[in-house]
């Protein structure tokens, strides 16, 4: 009998708020069976993205020091991380904000506050992963 190889997706979650990072992690792990790598700043995200090479990155927009768009630009500038799809997490959900984020070249945008029961499904839909 052949063996079935199950490949777990790995996602890097970047948010400076502990509670949001923790709930997103639980939600993706339990509802989506996605392995989560947490990061609490843009700087930490750049380092972990380079070392861990996750399948995708869920990136908060509003963070101190290096915000989401700046982190995204740095990820794009690094050869190792350029191809990793990025989904932004933001409370800025007006159509002008969404257009601005889409112009950056991200894979999608998820509105904050997010519903923990829906997060895995939203992420999988945006990334084309089977939930």
């Amino acid at each position, binding site marked *: 009998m052949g063996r079935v190889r199950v490949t777990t997706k790995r996602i890097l979650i970047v948010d400076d*708020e*502990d*509670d*949001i990072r*923790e*709930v997103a992690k*639980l*939600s993706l792990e*339990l*509802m989506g069976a996605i392995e989560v790598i947490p990061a609490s700043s843009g700087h930490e995200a750049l380092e972990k993205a380079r070392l861990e090479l996750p399948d995708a990155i869920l990136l908060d927009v*509003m963070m101190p020091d290096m915000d989401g768009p700046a982190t995204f630009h740095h990820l794009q500038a690094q050869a190792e991380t350029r191809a990793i799809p990025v989904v932004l997490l933001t*409370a800025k959900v007006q159509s002008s904000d969404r257009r601005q984020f889409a112009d950056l070249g991200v894979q999608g945008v998820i509105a*904050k*506050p*997010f*519903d*923990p*029961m829906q997060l895995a499904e939203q992420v999988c839909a945006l990334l084309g992963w089977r939930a």
Partner: protein
Amino acid sequence: MSDEAKQRATEAAIAGVWLRMRPTVLARFTAVEQALAAARDGALEEGLREQALHEAHKLAGSLGMFGFPEGSDLAKELEKSLRQGLGAAAAARFIERLGDLKTLLGA
């Protein structure tokens, strides 16, 4: 694990996070309340306004995620008012509504 079991496990885990994080979330009310009291008395300074704006933004995200949509909506409304300018009467109304919200959150 069935979808229903996954959902129950996730809800239980998130309820645990809420219990642990509640003091941190409630602490975010402090700067907001100080700013509202100052605005009510006509003495809101820029530093405090910015701090309250920051905390209101965080409250909007956290409360919605933990299942308190009315709290999240109030925090968003407050954030908008702090950005646009907050008069004494509006500040007094927010103080009252914030008190109700804190009761709901078990503060």
